[in-house]
């Protein structure tokens, strides 16, 4: 992590490279796709079904990562997303079990997600606690709550409209999970890149005080980022549960790290001020594709971990040349 305020002077010749680096994740994604197509294309990797599979399994991480891009661009972190996803999934499931229709359940889940976002935002922006700690504590707290509420039992969801809308359904032959992640990614891209709010997020993360002096209400902006993140986590939770037709307290464990990895892989700076949703989307797909391809290749778990760990490092090293 190299602070933005202190980047070492780059040699001038590195300038065009910097441009290339912005596209590293796309290039690498293409390379990985190509590699798998050649090696295991005939083993089902290239089937439409499998490509849809990749999109489907990455949907949850994508949705979380899109909102995480806002949080990180604003100079914060949200580690509570995984347990919030589980909370929302459980809320949704329990509300439906109680006999309410799915719209009510969806609303309730969103409220749960927003409530977590609200708490995070409160502690970070109004009390001034580092977000790493707040959201780490929140992650534990919510996970405990998830366990408590359900006595760790899974909650089954049998509402088929819900399951098909949020999970395993299709729309015109396209998996609804893919549609969700596309919609969220496009929305996120437009908001971050073309709206005043997006600019304020980036300015806040780039230099909070300068943004303040320019009239940006940085507290509100950060608060809003946490709300977004909470809502996205809730949506991700519903997608999980719709897909599994079940909600369970341990959904989304480790999703926070995966999402952050997708964000950083996509080219967003962990120190804030620079963010790209398209990169995040590609980063998430890249991770999903690697996981899927390695399974189809028949690698065992230990090999999968070694290869995918190696690829994450190399994907970025690839487009870099040693800085002077």
């Amino acid at each position: 992590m190299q602070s933005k305020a202190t980047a070492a002077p780059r040699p001038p010749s590195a300038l065009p490279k910097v441009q290339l680096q912005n596209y590293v994740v796309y290039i690498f994604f293409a390379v990985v796709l190509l590699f798998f197509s050649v090696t295991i294309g005939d083993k089902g990797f290239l089937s439409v079904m499998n490509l849809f599979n990749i999109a489907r399994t990455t949907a949850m991480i994508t949705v979380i990562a899109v909102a995480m891009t806002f949080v990180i661009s604003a100079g914060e972190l949200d580690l509570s997303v995984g347990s919030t996803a589980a909370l929302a999934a459980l809320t949704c499931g329990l509300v439906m079990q109680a006999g309410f229709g799915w719209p009510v359940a969806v609303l309730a889940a969103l409220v749960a997600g927003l409530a977590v976002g609200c708490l995070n935002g409160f502690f970070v922006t109004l009390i001034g606690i580092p977000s790493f700690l707040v959201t780490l504590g929140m992650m534990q707290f919510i996970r405990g709550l998830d366990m408590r509420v359900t006595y760790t039992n899974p909650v089954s969801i049998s509402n088929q409209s819900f399951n098909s809308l949020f999970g395993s359904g299709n729309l015109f032959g396209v998996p609804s999970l893919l549609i969700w992640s596309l919609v969220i990614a496009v929305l996120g891209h437009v908001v971050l890149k073309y709206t005043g709010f997006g600019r304020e997020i980036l300015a806040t993360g780039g230099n909070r005080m300068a943004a303040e002096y320019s009239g940006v209400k940085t507290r509100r902006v950060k608060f809003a980022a946490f709300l977004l993140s909470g809502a996205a986590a809730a949506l991700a939770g519903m997608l999980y549960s719709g897909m599994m037709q079940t909600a369970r307290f341990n959904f989304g464990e480790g999703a926070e790290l995966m999402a952050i990895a997708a964000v950083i892989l996509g080219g967003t700076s962990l120190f804030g001020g620079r963010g790209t949703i398209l990169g995040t989307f590609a980063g998430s797909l890249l991770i999903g594709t690697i996981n899927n391809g390695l399974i189809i290749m028949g690698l065992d778990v230990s090999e999968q971990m070694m290869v995918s760990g190696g690829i994450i490092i190399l994907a970025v090293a690839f487009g870099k040349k040693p800085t002077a």
Partner: protein
Amino acid sequence: DIEHPLWYTAPSAKTMELAKKDDLSNTVVSDGQRGEPGFPAANLALTDEQIAKVKAGEFTVAISMGWLGDDWASQQLIGLKESFEAMGIKVVAETNANWDDAKQIADLDAISVLKPDLLVSIPLNGKTTASAYKKISDAGTKVVFIDQAVEGMDPGKDYASIISSDNLALGMYLADALAEATGGKGDVAAMYYANDFYVTNLRYEGFIARVEAKYPDMHVVVAAGHNDPNKGQEVAQGLLARYPTLSGVYASWSIPAMGAVTAATVAGRTPADFKIVNENFDQIVALNMAQNGFIAGISSQRPYDQGVAEAKVGALALLGEQTPPYVVVPPLKVVRSNLAESYKTIYRVDLPAEMAEALAN
């Protein structure tokens, strides 16, 4: 000629011999870790006099679990707690190591401070946590192990008993259920928990042994691991993409099994041509089975009974009685036709309305 898990060792001759038996209902397949023959849990009993003595003793117990979050753990806890309450034994601590050996040691250390009279616990690993158990046992706490003992502790001396499912049999029932559902023919896959874990290793071994011994026309064409049950879907997807003609899969626990259900659904497979068997009889897979879903068979443990057996053994140990070193709870093969009855057996209540309704259709 498939690639087995890293920890895999081929079944013993004795296991292969038993795997050939048609009816396993009266056989204990697994031996204890030291080769002790299994003692059926049903044969454990306390006299009224013994119960009164336990009640008078005002004993305390600590429960240290390796994980929580499935019906196996929660039913077992219910069995334990109900039995302890009935016998007037007070639960003073309950911990969950969440699959982390080091956390389990910290948990045991904290428990040791409370000096409970009894500890019921499932060691996550027979080696790593050994000294922590030994310390508790040396301090005078009676120890009852769930599923496996730790190294360096001797039955009767350092601990009372191990209470376990018959895990090899559990794996064999899975093979039976899958063969029954697929007609004993075609290509099938096995999903396994990739980490070296005593009981799941045995089930996998039992499954493979049974298929080899009894179902020559059913081919296990691939075995794929996962180290996180939530990843079951991803793994199942990969299997279905690569082997589109699979007729069934052994999908380990219920969460990976439900992942396989989702994967099969999106792959356009139907319950008619694709069968899933698994080894946790929980609400989710039961419902799927009732609804004529992909779940065709469950090789169920009896967690509640196991909890009760553990409590009984614990009570006997508290009284200083000698207990059998290896107590076995037999598995139960659940298919759609015996679902209602099995549910009652395992959960002690009638089938929930939703399932009953689905079953009726």
